């Protein structure tokens, strides 16, 4: 559906986006991840036709961003970061204006605005001016703006930034609901958000793509080694080491701390099999008291940090 081809953007001498290429297929929710200043917003701004690329091309369906940017704009709905709207307009007037610009004819306009105000939960603020609204409501008005003519592709730049946890969950629900039928591209630097909403993740750092894969594969590829944390009472480090190394799969045992006779250990295991049962059986044979045991899978966070680390 969307085909991005060696996209490059320079701001004077600063290279914001460097030879980025990726594809997005129909109905996918794609997350664009990266630290601050990685080039996420620039990429989205080029995609939406706001900025012109220095080099490279984007094709949406059969349209090229160079020649048919008006057609592409018709297919896209865009919510810029922090939803910059005309702050002296009433919410209803604003949505009406957007509907007009988007070419929705007047017979469908009212019903469309009504539908969107229900979907985004902005019914009760329709008669307020935009600068009276809280951040969360502004974001929702922005979302309604982006979805006005039911676009096939929705581009959201940090849709949940600055919202409180309840609002974040609500916005995410809306996004997931939309994502069932539409292609959604969202940028974020909150990893749990990408993990929770996206099918596929593209991580960029300093204008370059460092990872591009589905959320699942990305997590698996980060390494088969799981970490298991256990806390034992009434146990000696040496004997524990001796006992546990006999379990196949454990490659390393690390003492995290030892407070008041409680031994906290971090076990690294190579295999992807679950060995917690084996550990429990081992512990039961001794007179150690098992206080705690939990498995830590490589989270997206570790992957992200590894890929975008400064070096």
């Amino acid at each position, binding site marked *: 559906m969307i085909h991005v081809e060696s996209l490059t953007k320079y701001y004077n001498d600063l290279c914001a986006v460097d030879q980025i290429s990726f594809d997005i297929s129909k109905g996918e929710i794609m997350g664009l991840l990266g630290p601050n200043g990685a080039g996420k917003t620039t990429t989205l*701004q080029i995609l*939406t*036709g*706001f*900025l*012109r690329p220095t080099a490279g091309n984007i094709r949406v369906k059969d349209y090229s961003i160079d020649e048919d940017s*008006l057609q592409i*704009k*018709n297919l*896209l709905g*865009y919510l*810029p970061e*922090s939803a*910059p*709207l*005309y*702050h*002296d*307009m009433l919410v209803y007037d604003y949505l009406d*204006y*957007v509907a*007009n*610009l*988007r*070419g929705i004819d007047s017979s469908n306009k009212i019903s469309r605005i009504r539908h969107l105000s229900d979907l985004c939960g902005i019914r009760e603020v329709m008669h307020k001016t935009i600068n009276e609204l809280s951040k969360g409501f502004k974001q929702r008005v*922005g979302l309604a*703006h982006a979805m006005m003519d039911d676009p096939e592709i929705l581009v959201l730049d940090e849709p949940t930034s600055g919202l409180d946890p309840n609002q974040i969950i609500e916005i995410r629900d809306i996004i997931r609901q939309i994502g069932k039928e539409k292609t959604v591209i969202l940028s974020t630097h909150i990893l749990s958000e990408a993990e929770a909403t996206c099918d596929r993740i593209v991580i960029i750092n300093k204008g370059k793509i460092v990872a591009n894969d589905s959320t699942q594969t990305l997590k698996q590829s980060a390494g088969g080694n799981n970490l298991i944390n256990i806390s034992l009472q009434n146990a000696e480090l040496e004997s524990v080491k001796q006992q546990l190394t006999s379990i196949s799969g454990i490659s390393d045992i690390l003492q995290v701390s030892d407070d008041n006779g409680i031994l906290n250990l971090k076990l690294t295991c190579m295999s992807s099999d679950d060995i917690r049962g084996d550990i429990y059986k081992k512990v039961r044979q001794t007179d150690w008291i098992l206080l705690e045991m939990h498995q830590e899978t490589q989270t997206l966070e570790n992957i992200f940090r590894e890929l975008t680390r400064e070096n």
Partner: protein
Amino acid sequence: MRQAFFIFKREFLTYFVSPIAYIVISFFLLVTGWFFFTTFFLYNQASLRNFFSLLPIIFSFVVPAITMRLFSEEFNVGSYETLLTMPVTFLDVVLGKFLASVAFIVAMLIPTLAYPLTVGFLGQLDWGPVAGGYTGAILLGAAFSAIGLLASSMTRNQIIAFITGMAICFCLVLIDKMLFFLPRFSLVFFQYLGADHHFQNISKGIIDSRDILYFLSISFIGLYGTHLVLQEKN
């Protein structure tokens, strides 16, 4: 073009939502009214010559105040991004905003129709120059709007937009008053460049194609420049 109309409508209505419109209009009426009527009874002539002779200089700081926010505010708030990612062209945006400013100037001139009506009531008013004067005022307003728009498109700071626009308009008005500083061979050229010269011709009731062409070319240059600035911005 439909888009240009909706942008025009929004910009025009926004003027009247904020207090700026009312401040600018009252300021304009106060200044023109004051300067016109303080000398009106001294001259003891039923003409609006005095009112129209002041108009270029007053317009050169009122019109940039009207146009200063058109682009600068959008750049500053960031709403320019939301606007441009909707299916609009640069031409729609420029035309919509330009027409909104011209329409606002017309709205600002409407209350001044009270002057010719009053004068017509007091004495024998020749309506030809009045009609010419108002046509000229709208043309002058359009030309200055285009300049103000260009100034506004170059900065995100409204004050800078205002001062730049005002400086250019001021120069255009005053240039034919400064002619004796200039070398002889260039006089005709600089006189032709002066907005005041052309405006006074029209306000005498003489509608000459050269004067109309002058205002239209200034408008065109301003709008084309704005279009170029917007294109280059991204």
